[in-house]
């Protein structure tokens, strides 16, 4: 067990870092905001933490904290900038934001180390610290997935106009999502930079965006558990597929396609649907009038409303 842990330490750490990265895409997605800005914050956080550690030799928690704070503020300001956009337009603007951060890092001169990036950012961050941060984040997000807050988030996602008329602050909630997304992305980037002691502009590319998106979509976009499932799968899949040899990347792509077609709610959604079917059958056998699952009913209602109003807007 210890031997396995030591042999796979890099992958274990990568799983948790990818988890935070996936969450930075998922948090806005739960509010119906299609934003990849979290990946840009990943780069921002990685550079902030690396520069602070290299120049001022600050402890890890200060470097990460500063990175998180900065990215949250940048995320909030960015949300003001793109307030008028939605859907795929917003997605494109955020992709541009991510790639501009990479270009800025490449052209940053001495501060960012240019195309070579920064080396030797040694710090006292441990794997335990990474896991602790992830647990705290997961608990906090789990709190947003229950009670009135969950219903508010779902209402904003399924029907912003209806939510607005019900007195839910759609715009502040979206701005909040950008700030949280920035903080999460920066946290992942900062911890990655400190664990690997290096950061380079090549890391922040289109493929990182693709990885983050596929993790969320295939794991499940409605809950942090989905992001965790996705991060476990996509961190470990490449090494599992090594047995497929030369066709590894082809198999990887085919898995993504199949997931996109057959699992619209992700693996988590698939499991939940199966569970609900099983439970529904059992409770139907006990009483003729099965106790209605209020969440399912609520969601169906919201979806019906969402479908109607979207047709009207077009």
């Amino acid at each position, binding site marked *: 067990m210890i031997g396995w842990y030591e042999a796979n330490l890099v992958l274990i750490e990568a799983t948790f870092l990818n988890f935070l990265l996936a969450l930075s895409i998922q948090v806005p997605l739960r509010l119906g905001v299609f934003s990849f800005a979290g990946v840009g914050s990943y780069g921002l956080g990685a550079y902030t933490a690396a520069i602070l550690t290299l120049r001022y030799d600050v402890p890890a928690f200060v470097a990460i904290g500063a990175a998180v704070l900065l990215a949250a503020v940048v995320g909030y300001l960015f949300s003001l900038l793109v307030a008028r956009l939605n859907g795929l337009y917003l997605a494109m603007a955020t*992709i*541009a934001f991510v790639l501009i951060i990479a270009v800025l890092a490449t052209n940053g001169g001495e501060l960012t180390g240019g195309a070579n990036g920064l080396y030797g950012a040694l710090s006292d961050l441990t794997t335990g610290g990474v896991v602790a941060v992830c647990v705290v984040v997961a608990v906090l997000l789990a709190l947003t997935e229950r009670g009135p807050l969950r219903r508010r988030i779902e209402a904003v996602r399924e029907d912003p106009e209806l939510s607005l008329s019900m007195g839910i602050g759609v715009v502040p909630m979206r701005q909040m999502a950008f700030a949280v997304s920035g903080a999460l992305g920066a946290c992942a980037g900062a911890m990655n930079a400190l664990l690997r002691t290096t950061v380079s502009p090549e890391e922040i590319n289109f493929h990182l965006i693709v990885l983050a998106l596929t993790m969320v979509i295939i794991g499940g976009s409605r809950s942090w558990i989905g992001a965790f499932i996705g991060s476990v799968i996509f961190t470990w899949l490449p090494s599992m597929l090594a047995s497929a040899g030369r066709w590894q990347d082809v198999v990887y792509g085919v*898995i993504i396609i199949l997931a996109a077609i057959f699992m619209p709610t992700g693996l988590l959604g698939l499991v939940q649907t199966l569970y609900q079917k099983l439970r529904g059958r059992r409770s139907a056998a006990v009483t003729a009038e099965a106790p209605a699952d209020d969440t399912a009913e609520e969601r169906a209602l919201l979806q019906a409303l969402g479908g109607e109003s979207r047709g009207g807007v077009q």
Partner: protein
Amino acid sequence: MLEILINAVTLGSLYLLFALGMSVAWGTIGILNFAHGSTFMFSAMVAYFVVQTVTLPMWAMVLLGAAVGTVLSVLTQALVFNLILRRNPDLLKAEMQIVVGGIGTASVLLAIAQHYTKSVPFGFSASTFKVATYQLGPVHISNVQLVILVAALGLAGLAAWWLKSARAGLALRAIGVNPEVASLMGVDRSRMALGTMAAAGALAGIAGVLLTYYLGSIAAETGDSFLISAFAAIILGGIGSVAGVVTGSMILALAETLVVTQLSGTWASAVAFGLIFVVLLFLPRGIFGRKEVRRT
């Protein structure tokens, strides 16, 4: 200066050939095909492997590229996007599934291409076509550039005329305005979608082969960078508008060429992203885009 302009217009024409099909598909049938860049690269690669065994002239290579692009695009539509749309009645949700499905398709095509080309750039040196340069007044222009200009402007003109005047073009635009009403009026959505994707694929294939002739060689990864430039061109001009794609492609190519020649190469990639950003902020629907009602 004129040389720079000619080079910029050639690059713009290549962007135009590439982005045209993508823009029309996105603006009408609502499919943003992330596998478009891979389709483009893959067509050029197939043409490369054919020309290694059979010596072909340029026109045959272009036709071959168009054929491969059509087949790939139709397969992507039939096997990926169509299945996603059939299972997802929710448009917004399907939009994301389509993006992810396209990304998956793109990585499959890229992996196959990297495997067969061993990630080494490939070119058409085996083709019978030879590059020649003409002196037209004060400017030098090569025969490849001429072919690219004529093909791009001709095909864009054809697409614009077809969308505007042909009955099927009207049906396609109707889908873009309101898919449900269009279906009620007797427009066969899935057939129109397949046809649009076929045309988009053909254009991507032509662009791929012509780019390879123009640059001498391309690599398996060229498709990805073209995809991002195409997004910029499409957003700049306004989604679904042919005049928009033409304008967007030319502005983008001109801006990129100017930055490369006047500033430095490392900033060139920032031009596309910077343009996307600025345009989305000030003209959210692009230069020729349709207005859309927003309530939140």
